[in-house]
């Protein structure tokens, strides 16, 4: 141990070369300040990003929730046989019905003690122009009701609805030829009397689109069906094709120019703008193959081509995650390569494949641009398709295209619908993503 003494002894001889560690020098302080600043930038970037998300969601919710309620006017309408028959004989059937409702409405007003010198025609403006048709539909569907008095909840016009939701103010009405302040006074008193009321709006969720003049009637239900049929096409085509392509590329493909070409194509297709797929759909499916325009079938085909790269990429990842030992074990007991893949690898990769497929479908569900080019936009989601074939082939819209359609219309009452439609669309997307996450959690394997 003598040597040690010599060694450490030298340390004492050496002069301290630097200042104490316990004192932070000025340069280090400056550097630490820069460090703190840099970290702040990063944190602010994250916060800004999250704030954008919050702002977006808040906007959607605050503008869209009102689409789920709608203003109704409760009117007992006497359905006199003579009047009904006269109306049915006439050429302008609905305007006769409108007169019947008008009289009933005037009675409601007077029995509620609301005095007005407005003409029946002016009073009629408070009601949706679709009200007469809904009374008529009811009568035709229930002939037994003729001769009785039936109490209808009729849609109020979109201006009245907007007034009760705070969208339309009295100032707005100065230049409005449909409604004026006198109407609003009546609305105030009717709503105090409980005759005009906001209710939950099932028609928005399940109903069809309505024309420009009847925003209060427009619903997203039919375009939802359009989306549903499109997703069916996408699922039925992209899952098997995507899985087959992935199996080939991951398990069988030799390393050659052809395989490379496919790989390059897949990664590029994943980044091709969606509008280009719309052009492809228009030229290939409609111009060339003469498939019907605006049909969910065509929309589904286009979206399939668009989602395939996504599905192939995620499927290959989950095939890759199955360890080679599984394949070797199967091959070892004399299975053919094909059998080892289909009997052993594929089932193990299935949860991952399904997760990827659901995420791909969610992407397709929200896609709008290509649908515009194949004509799935405009006032077309107006009838519930009768039957499965019609569901695929009859002109229809899709949820995002319907939202776009509403956003384009002039009447701001449609904006509320557009935001409301977004809420429904996002609910669908959220559900799909949650299912995907659950699937992944549930079946996640660690090898």
């Amino acid at each position: 141990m003598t040597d040690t003494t010599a060694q450490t002894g030298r340390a004492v001889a050496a002069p301290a070369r630097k200042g104490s560690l316990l004192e932070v020098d000025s340069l280090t302080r400056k550097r630490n300040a820069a460090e703190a600043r840099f970290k702040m930038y990063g944190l602010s970037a994250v916060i800004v990003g999250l704030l954008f998300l919050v702002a977006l969601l808040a906007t959607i919710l605050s503008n869209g929730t009102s689409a789920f309620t709608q203003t109704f006017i409760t009117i007992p309408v006497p359905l006199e046989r003579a009047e009904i028959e006269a109306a049915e004989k006439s050429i302008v059937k609905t305007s006769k019905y409108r007169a019947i409702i008008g009289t009933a409405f005037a009675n409601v007003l007077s029995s509620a003690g609301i005095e007005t010198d407005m003409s029946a025609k002016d009073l009629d403006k408070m009601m949706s122009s679709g009200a007469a048709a809904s009374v008529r539909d009811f009568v035709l569907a229930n002939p037994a009701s003729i001769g009785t008095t039936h109490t209808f909840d009729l849609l109020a016009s979109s201006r009245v609805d907007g007034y009760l939701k705070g969208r339309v103010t009295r100032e707005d009405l100065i230049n409005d030829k449909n409604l004026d302040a006198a109407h609003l006074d009546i609305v105030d008193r009717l709503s105090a009397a409980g005759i005009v009321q906001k209710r939950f709006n099932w028609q928005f969720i399940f109903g069809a689109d309505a024309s420009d003049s009847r925003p209060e009637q427009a619903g997203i239900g039919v375009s939802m069906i359009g989306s549903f049929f499109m997703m069916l096409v996408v699922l039925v085509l992209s899952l098997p094709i995507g899985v087959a392509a992935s199996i080939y590329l991951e398990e069988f493909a030799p390393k050659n120019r052809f395989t490379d070409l496919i790989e390059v194509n897949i990664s590029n297709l994943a980044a091709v703008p969606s509008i280009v797929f719309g052009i492809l759909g228009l030229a290939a499916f409609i111009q060339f193959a003469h498939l019907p325009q605006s049909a969910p079938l065509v929309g589904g085909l286009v979206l399939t081509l668009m989602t395939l790269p996504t599905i192939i990429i995620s499927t290959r990842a989950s095939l890759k995650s199955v360890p080679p030992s599984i394949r070797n074990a199967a091959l070892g007991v004399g299975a053919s390569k094909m059998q080892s893949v289909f009997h052993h690898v594929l089932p193990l990769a299935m949860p991952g494949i399904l997760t990827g497929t659901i995420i791909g479908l969610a992407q397709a569900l929200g896609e709008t641009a290509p649908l515009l080019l194949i004509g799935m936009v405009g006032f077309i989601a107006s009838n519930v398709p009768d039957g499965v074939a019609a569901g695929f082939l009859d002109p229809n819209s899709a949820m995002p295209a319907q939202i776009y359609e509403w956003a384009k219309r002039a009447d701001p009452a449609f904006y509320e619908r557009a935001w409301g439609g977004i809420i429904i669309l996002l609910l669908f997307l959220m559900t799909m993503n949650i299912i995907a996450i659950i699937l992944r959690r549930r079946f996640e394997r660690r090898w």
Partner: protein
Amino acid sequence: MSLPILVFVLLALSVAGYVLGRGRAMASAGGDARKLHSLPNYYGWFGFLVALLPAALMLLLWLPAQSVVIDTQVSAMISDRSAAESSRGLVMSDVERVAEGLDLAVDAGVLTEEQAASIRTEFTDVRERLGEVGVALGSDVTSETLQAAQRYRALSSTGDLLRTLAVVAAALAGLAFVYRRAASTFRARNAVEAVVRWILILAASIAILTTVGIILSLIFNTVEFFSLYPAWDFFFGLTWSPSFGGGSELGILPLLWATLYISFIALAVSVPIGLFAAIYLSEYAGPAVRAVAKPLLEVLAGIPTIVYGLFALLTVGPLLVDIFGDGGVLGVGWMGGGTAVMTAGLVMGIMLIPFVSSLSDDIINAVPQAMRDGSLGLGATHSETVKQVILPAALPGIVGAILLAGSRAIGETMIVVLGAGAAARLSLNPFEAMTTVTAKIVSQLTGDADFASPEALVAFALGMTLFVITLGLNVIALYIVRKYREQYE
């Protein structure tokens, strides 16, 4: 036989093929499955595929061929005079509608088959008769159209008959083949696996087919466009003013300018925010923050673009007007309306934040830990390490990510359709409304323009330009990113 029934019959025959193949094999092995070369089911599948595939292929080829043949035959009947009045295509679609109407009328029992084949416009008001069954025709049916339609129907029904015969014959031939081959020594499994392998290859080739399809559909129509409108004027024209009466000026430059301007703003918003967020999340944030913030940011990427479009149109646009517009908070009056380059650019920037951040995150994480340790071990602070070691090392990857984001921005449609405006303009003011390549593709193809007019066809030339630009960006970006990854593998 109608198409659905034919398909059904074909499937039934294929199932028969399964039963036949399996049964024959079992019989030849005397009922002892062990004597077979392959499992009995493979003989069944062999039968199924042999009955189905050739016939199905025949059907797939037949369908377009038949419609082409009929089209040429029928359109030859249309005189040049009536083709000159409107376009031949329009007359042909009239013919098809009348033919369809006649079909419906026969189905509904309004006309008998003979009547449908023989009615003449001279004796019957065809338009009204068809109206009764719910086929609305825009104009009166000329006798020429009606005759063409009748010819169309006759050819179609002959074609359908031949089609049925051909397909069923192919399926039966398949069955006969199965009957002969399905014996115990036949290597059914190898045969089936070879077919399955081809099916897999076919599925994988769809990626190539799609690309080819895109290129063909762009090229044909673009060439047609350039035969109507000079390419020089398209690529170098400074004005975009389509007018459906003719005499349009269709220069792409104003559109390209706005596209690039908006993309630039979008990148200016998303690259700093996305990059810093990625740096923070991968270098500083604790596991808890990371686990919450990362998926939340990625929610922004999962929101459909139509939502961003609406957000631009109805929220951000009016907000910007309140700030930069006439009588706005700043009182500068730069902004006339809500739709503007700035509006679209900002919102697109928000959309791209998660795109940039998750790509950069991957790339930053690919920088080996040893590099960080080396720098920290020398006494560098974390930010010095990031700025001077990690970012330079990750630079190629980040450049690739930015290029990919740029390609996204250039190809984005819904945000610009709703947020950027409709008027083409070459201006430097970002608060002015301008319109982009994608927005004009939509408006030119969803308008009422005749499909053969340059005003509609220009959309394909625009699409071609868009495709070439984004493809170029993607190829370069993917190449850079791949090279970058290989470097650290």
